[in-house]
């Protein structure tokens, strides 16, 4: 027994699911439907975990990651640490369509996106600025650094490395990953 077509996505982002489903029902390809679904979340900034204006890095800048994969041909396009371009899933598809590569990252990925016609604009919002401000005010906590000085559990950077005197101890800390802070 089959139940097709089908759209499934992580988290209760029902508008994204509905957008992809409506696209499929109107005759769009699975590829287009997936891009429409994920783009909906980017525009709506689903839970603050997708799209612009949230979860800034240590410097206060929001960056985006995205990927698209075709299960027929195993074609993949992906983008990481994308800056100043909002439509990350669109850029991932552009990587797949307009290059022979699989993953582009950082400033160069942004430059590629602009070359492919995507608009360059700030990803900051009042919300992301406030998140950054509160983080600084809270002595840069939570913090993902380790084996550096000053102690990253209580201090902001800049940091310099401090190798341990005995054995290296790689222990992933628990960083309160939840519905609003996750990959």
């Amino acid at each position: 027994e089959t139940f097709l077509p089908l759209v499934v996505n992580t988290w209760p982002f029902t508008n994204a699911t509905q957008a992809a489903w409506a696209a499929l029902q109107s005759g769009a390809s699975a590829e287009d439907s997936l891009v429409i679904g994920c783009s909906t979340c980017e525009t709506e900034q689903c839970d603050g975990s997708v799209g612009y204006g949230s979860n800034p890095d240590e410097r206060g800048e929001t960056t985006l990651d995205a990927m698209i994969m075709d299960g027929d041909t195993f074609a993949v396009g992906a983008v990481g640490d994308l800056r100043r371009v909002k439509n990350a899933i669109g850029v991932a598809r552009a990587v797949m369509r307009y290059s022979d590569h699989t993953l582009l990252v950082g400033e160069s990925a942004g430059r590629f996106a602009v070359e492919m016609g995507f608009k360059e604009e700030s990803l900051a919002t009042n919300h992301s600025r406030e998140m950054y401000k509160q983080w600084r005010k809270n002595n840069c906590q939570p913090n993902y650094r380790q084996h550096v000085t000053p102690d990253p559990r209580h201090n902001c950077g800049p940091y310099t490395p401090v190798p341990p005197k005995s054995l290296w101890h790689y222990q992933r800390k628990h960083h309160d990953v939840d519905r609003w802070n996750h990959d």
Partner: protein
Amino acid sequence: TIGMVVIDTSMRVWAGTSTNGMNHKVPGRVGDSPVMGAGSYADSSVGGAAATGDGDIMMRFLPSFRAVIEMEYGASPTEAAQKAMAPIIKHYPQFSGALVAVNRTGHYGAYCHGFSKFGYSVASPAFEKVTVVYVDC
């Protein structure tokens, strides 16, 4: 993060992700979302999967790839999700994450760890409208 799998009536499977990652990350950090086999994976002869959670941990185990492989070996989507998450939980019992898996006939399942519960969204001929399915972690 959103991780999505779309299957059309010809059983063509597409998977994708989009995210702004972890809050206050070290500049330059990239999570699991753009890593194929980690954030999501698709194989039209089997199905697809998408993961969410602590990407620094999850990307070390390629759980989406693992889930699709488990389905290829005969596991149900729910079993495949559980098997894909098992090694992560074994090595990092404190981690939080979830994975949804879908086979090519439109059957789906999920497994999660570290959250109290995990919700994912489904649109299918089996439902009249988009439905949120919850699993206890």
